[in-house]
């Protein structure tokens, strides 16, 4: 199946959404993203890690080293309070935009 490009500016929103459920490491996030998008999206580590680092730097995420399911050392990312607030805002904006786009497409 051909993968879709991740629309500009939505990767952060999806990362935040995934991490809202539970803390997770980079590989886990990429797997979950692929799985949740039913295989339409596959995130490239060259995009994923810069996003993670930027969000961490901006204080939206907090990274902590821990052990993975099969006892490997892995860096787990956790949503901070500020990250949760950003998620809510972006989510709300995205919902409105999606509604608007759908309305336009269906109404035309």
């Amino acid at each position, binding site marked *: 199946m051909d993968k879709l490009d991740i629309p500009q500016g939505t990767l952060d929103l999806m990362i935040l959404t995934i991490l809202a459920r539970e803390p997770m490491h980079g590989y886990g996030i990429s797997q979950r993203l692929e799985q949740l998008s039913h295989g339409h999206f596959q995130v490239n580590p060259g995009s994923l890690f810069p996003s993670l*680092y930027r969000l961490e730097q901006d*204080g939206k995420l907090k990274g902590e080293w821990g052990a993975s399911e099969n006892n490997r050392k892995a860096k787990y990312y956790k949503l901070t309070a500020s990250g949760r607030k950003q998620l809510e805002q972006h989510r709300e904006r995205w919902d409105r935009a999606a509604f608007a786009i759908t309305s336009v497409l269906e109404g035309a």
Partner: protein
Amino acid sequence: MTLLHRLRSVVHWIIHRSEAEQGLNDELQSFLDMSVAEKIADGMSPAEARRLANLELGGVEQVKEHVRTERHGGWLDEIGRDVRYAFRLFFKNPVFTCTVVLTLALGIGANTAIFSLIDALMLRWLPVRDPQELVQVRLQSPGANEPGGESFSYPMVRALADQRDIFSGVAGFSGTSFDVGTPGSFSRVHGALVTGGYYSTLGLNPVVGRLLTDEDDRVGAPLSAVITYGYWQREFGGSRQVAGQTIRIKGQMVTIVGVTPRGFAGANVGDVADITMAVAALPQMYPTMAPLLGSGNVWLRILARPKPDISTDEATSRLNVMWSRLADSLINPGWPPSERKKISESVFRLSDGGTGWSYLRETYRNPLYVLMGAVSLVLLIACANVATLLLARASARQKEIAVRLAIGASRARVVRQLLIESIVLSLIGAACGVLLARVLGSLLITLISTDLSSVDFDLTPNGHVLAFSAAAAIVTGILFGMAPAIQTTAVNPIVAAREDVRTTAGSRTRLLPFLVVAQVGLSLVLLAGAGLFARTLSNLQSLDAGFRTEGVLLVVLDDQRALISPPVVEELQRLPGVLSTAVSTHTPLNGWTWSEPVVPAGQPRPERDNAVVVGAGPGFFSTLQIQLIAGREFTERDRRDRAPVALVNDAYAARHFPNRSPVGQHLSTSIGENKDFEIVGMVRNAKLTGLRAAAPPTVYVAYYQLESARATTISVRATSPLARVSTAIQQTLQPKFPNTPIEVRALSTQVANTIVQERMMAMLAGGFAVLALTLACVGLYGLLAYDVSRRTREIGIRMALGAHARRVVASVVAGGIRLVAIGVLAGLPAVWIGSRSIGSLLFGVRALDAVTIAGAIVVLLAAAQLAAYLPARRASRVDPLEALRHE
């Protein structure tokens, strides 16, 4: 996201970089491991799983690079790498690097030196509390455009200090010097006389003891002095017991009460005041100076601190209301009514005072601006020079850059890398330049400092100066780096990488000659300027001042009471080597004058002074060799018991006795009781008051007929070495005046002292012109040498075909001279503009002096010929066979 947060993460990144790098490494490794593990679990072979996982990741280094650029401060990292790369290149080309750094160090160093002087003299805040609040008080005559008078009488300062609703403090001050020590071992220490509000207005706190207050500024108060931190360290070893100790000044015991903070040396910028005393101490210290406390002497400068709640405009208008009320009581009643009226109608002006006051500003403001202009031209030349070097080197790097462009670096990225190299070079140059500026700066200070008036600045590079040099370096770096960077990257990478570099040289050679032409043009401006200043100095030195400078010693008895009796002068006359001696109230160019209203008898005396007056003793004119035109000199017989006599100079006679001899006529004056003087002689004009202006109408009166004591100098014309005579004079006189330091100086020193500014300009402009010329010649040499090496093959062919070596030399030199000629033509308009701005600093030479400009052109051509000759000779030695094999 706040700026602070952003900054913190940049700092965090810088500090914890290696940690963060390690973390990123681990994280990517664990990502890879998990990916591999899952693929194996899905049934792939380990090798296949690893290959696929790596492929999906897309290269660890690439991901890291993406993360790095995303990080705050990531750009810092890139610049850091560019800088490291630049340094690697520099170490690989030490000769190139040293040449560039030296050129820039000279250019930036000269700029920094001049700027640090401007900064010290004009820009730097006084080290006091809130200096920006301080204002300088001036009094502007009605209808005058100038900033207004800066000097005030002591009663006026006190009256201003009383205006508590306008000022929270008012400080009056004036520089002076104190003779400290016991008879026979005096040392002259620079100092200041200040009013009681001085230290509180400036808001200074003592390091030791206390500072002077209004209590000290009362007539009859115990004599107290405050010393500077530097004097405390030098003379008292920084002992805290200094407060309460006494020093002997003029035979009087003065108590040191405190020490001012480090860095503060008085409000007179450039004149370190090591000892400061209250104005009101004057009558006790020097009884003859008591009139300085009256309203007849204006001599104090004022800095004041307006109350915080009122604006400068408000303060000014309140001050002027006060003045209309108090003017009459503050203006000296002895002054002529018209003068009194003018002063009472004057208005106060407040200007920024936070940088203190300096008499040097008036003298050196314009010269320093001119010098600043000159050194920026030098820097421009240095820039052009370095750009030439970079362009020449660029050919060597063309391939490297083409490869970098070809493998995907953007042009902007490569240009940035090249510019960073330039800026790093110029920053290194600037660092060396700052060190050089220290040396140059102290040299400058010795140039403007003389035995008679020492100038002292703290030239330790401060924030201003360092910021200036850094800015100069960055602008310079961009300036000289931009053209080469753009040109080098403006190539088709594929063509450049494949073909010989030489094919792209065509475009570069258009820029190189342009740079040389610019250097020549700018050098011409500096050479012409140096010529004008040199001629100004030599005109002043060789001008006929109407008196003879050489062979005269001046004995200055620094005591106004000392009315030297004839026997004292006669004793000096008998010393070996002494030809003649004479007393007088003034000597040529001693820095102050005495003027009075003097008219032919029978005419009404004007209110304003119209003649310079000099009290001269017997032998004055023969000692100074001022030529007597008619009548006689003063003699021993011209004493108080005889009718007063006078001599006039040519200018006075021409104005008041046109077409007739003044000898035998009478003068009506305001001098003494008699006020009637008979003219017994006429002398040639002598420039006693200044070298630049024509001699003013002057009246000489007999020294021994003067009724009041005046400052006195003995002039001594001597044959044997002046130093020996000087020692003999001191040994003879000192026992007679135990409490007065006796200073013996050469008249030539005193005269030289008045052209310090012109000498500085001549020397510095000359120095900068030589520097500019050298740089321009190096530039020309570089261009021609490059040209010859490029044309080796062509020259070889021409020589093989029988061209004579001399022809080859001539063609190369001609090429150089042609560039210089274009540069000269381009430079002429700049000379025209530049010389107009220095007109007021010149003397005896027009700003557009054809001879000077022609001279500058000749010097340039001669130097250029020399610079062109070396590459030309190399061209003539090309061996045709070698040259053809060369390719």
